[in-house]
């Protein structure tokens, strides 16, 4: 009896010790892995679905990307509705209808973030520019700008050669180039200290880390204070619902760039954010028939913009405005050849 009792007591003690050991171990683990979330993940049974969603969360679709995905659907819906109208009018087999349908399916709204360490800039050779306005046209086509209000992000103004003052400009000239005139294409200067972003009452326009000043069309309240603040006349307002023909729609879109705009919001040059963030060049640079424009990363010593600025120097328009533009102008080789043999071989 006594022995039995002792055995029983021993067993009880042993199981108690076992239990204490297990509890101690468990609490040790929980002490080591203080993060409760992690602990739960370790202890609870794991299903494949959970793992997949977690992996997706780790990839972190940013707020902007989520909005871009939604925007893609919205744009497609908008485009399809327009295409439907067009197809009804022109017939199902017409080339316009097919083209419109094709473009609608290709629509993809991106939210490509800025690449760390890049600092975009553009430079324009005033000696080369012939004032043909092809850049303005290419810009309209690339950026899905309204066609009927005549919104152009790039305005080419012509001023007399002897006076480089942006005053009494002619922006409706019919013939170009003329000998005594200088043509100055002006768009957003993507300033280092942009007054437009300072005055925006709702932070709807801001400067991205790579130097591009963008407008968030879903946030703009249309107060037009930024137009008032911009010393370069770079901003455009959608004074009514914009109209873009679906057959000319550019399906390669960026949420901060060329998605189809809403009525009563601001828009402006984004240096073709949908192209440049993916390593391309803006449409105006690509289309310029005389190669007057150079675009690149200021931080990259081998980029064309660095070469141009080192070789020819550069100036900005209206430096007195104090906004430190990142759009430079320079006088290339055509009329003012580089200083003779000072630095050795130049571009020639």
């Amino acid at each position: 009896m006594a022995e039995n009792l002792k055995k029983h007591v021993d067993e009880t003690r042993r199981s108690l010790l076992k239990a204490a050991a297990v509890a101690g171990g468990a609490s040790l683990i929980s002490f080591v892995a203080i993060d409760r979330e992690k602990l739960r993940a370790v202890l609870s049974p794991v299903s494949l679905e959970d793992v997949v969603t977690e992996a997706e969360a780790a990839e972190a679709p940013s707020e902007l990307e989520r909005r871009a995905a939604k925007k893609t659907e919205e744009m497609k819906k908008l485009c399809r509705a327009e295409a439907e109208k067009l197809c009804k009018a022109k017939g199902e087999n017409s080339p316009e209808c097919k083209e419109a349908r094709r473009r609608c399916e290709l629509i993809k709204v991106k939210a490509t973030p800025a690449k760390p360490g890049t600092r975009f800039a553009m430079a324009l050779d005033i000696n080369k520019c012939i004032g043909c306005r092809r850049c303005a046209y290419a810009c309209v086509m690339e950026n899905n700008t309204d066609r009927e209000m005549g919104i152009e992000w790039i305005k080419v103004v012509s001023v007399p050669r002897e006076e480089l003052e942006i005053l009494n400009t002619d922006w409706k000239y019919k013939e170009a180039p003329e000998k005594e005139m200088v043509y100055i294409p002006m768009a957003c200067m993507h300033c280092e200290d942009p007054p437009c972003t300072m005055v925006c009452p709702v932070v709807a326009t801001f400067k991205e880390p790579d130097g591009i000043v963008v407008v968030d069309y879903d946030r703009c309240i249309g107060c037009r204070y930024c137009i008032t603040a911009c010393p370069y006349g770079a901003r455009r307002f959608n004074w009514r619902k914009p109209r873009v023909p679906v057959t000319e729609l550019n399906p390669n879109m960026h949420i901060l760039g060329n998605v189809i705009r809403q009525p009563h919001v601001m828009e402006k040059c984004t240096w073709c954010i949908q192209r440049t963030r993916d390593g391309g060049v803006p449409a105006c640079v690509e289309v310029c028939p005389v190669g007057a424009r150079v675009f690149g990363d200021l931080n990259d010593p081998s980029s064309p913009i660095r070469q141009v600025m080192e070789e020819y120097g550069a100036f900005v328009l209206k430096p007195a405005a104090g906004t430190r533009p990142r759009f430079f102008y320079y006088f290339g080789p055509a009329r003012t050849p580089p200083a003779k043999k000072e630095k050795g071989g130049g571009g020639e």
Partner: protein
Amino acid sequence: MAKEYGDSFLDTIKYIIDEGLLKGSKAFYLALLGLLLIGAYGMYLWIFVQHAPIFLGSNYGGMITTDLTDSVTWGIYISFFVFWVGVAAAGIVFGIAAYAFGHKGFKKVAVLGEVQAVAALITVLLLIAVDVGRPLRAMILMPQLPNLHSMLDWDFIVISGYLTLNLIGFLVTIHYYRRDLPLPAKFTVPFIIIAAPFAIGIHTVTAFLSQALTARPIWNSPLLAPRYVATAFASGPAILVLALVLAEKYIKGFRVDPDVYKKTMIVIAGALVVGLYFTLSEAHEIYWYTTEPWKKAQANEMIFGYHLPYLAVMYWLWVALGIAAVILTLIPRVRNSRTGMLFIAVLTIIAVVNEKTMSIVIPAYIPDPLGRYIPYYPTPVEYAITLGVHALGILVYLVLAKAAISAIMRHYFQGSGAHH
């Protein structure tokens, strides 16, 4: 008269509704109806034409129906916004005279300055509402995501703050006067200490909206804010004088202390002199030697109106009528007669409307930063909406002023205040 009210604040509000809206002659209701119709038409045009794509999602309409462009982006709405902010700010003149200096005559009518400020600020807020492209989004986003670097947010904050202050001042004054009690010092002293800087503040911040912009050289001068405030102190009191003279004429038994008129006329003339002096100083700075060509081009538009003649007309009207009003104030025979005062007040209001509205806003956009001269003539839609907004402002003024005057009458002309 038969109706009796309790002592609670709710009864004060009942009193205001009764006195302001439910009692009145046929002419009063006719005026209210007319104003309401004009206001409703303006709001209709705003919702169904100018902002149709926003409110109705329609393809037609939009702000394209205005003559605003990417070149001239702020027009008649912002022009009158500037004017009415000034009028609202100057409502404080009576308050300062009454509560800071303890002038008995001004104490009687100080509440009318508050009524004027409330009505002017409601006009101001409506003008912003019709000018902003996406008003609903603005209402949601501005409190949520304010950018404290933006003067527009500060303007919104001080304007709504000043509106609240004046509403409080108005309600409390009526609350005491209707029960035939004088305003206690424990209200008036803190009120005037807070309200006076706020009054100067709203107009200063409104000028700060535009004066720090290098993109608009004609505004880009530290003189802009003082100039705004100076002429505001002419137009605001002038409107008060106009209201007082008319009230004396049409409301039986309502009398204003002659000293109130005398002192107000001095304020008007003084403010006009300062404003005219600033105009002279500005012209000297631009024209005497040389200046930045862009600034000079904008000044040329303002003073000579090469592309927009009405700007020059307004500018010279301001100079001429401003000088005329000052000279007339200096003549005692004109200054001391009711008709003379009325005339000077109207002259001053017209002069300052010409100085404050279009001729201060539009030249900054012509030429624009691209050197273009794109003229701006408000379209019928803009005129109608502006008119509608003003009708609503006047409506508010009439209702509140009527309640205020009846409370003043109760305390000062029928009650204990009469013996002061």
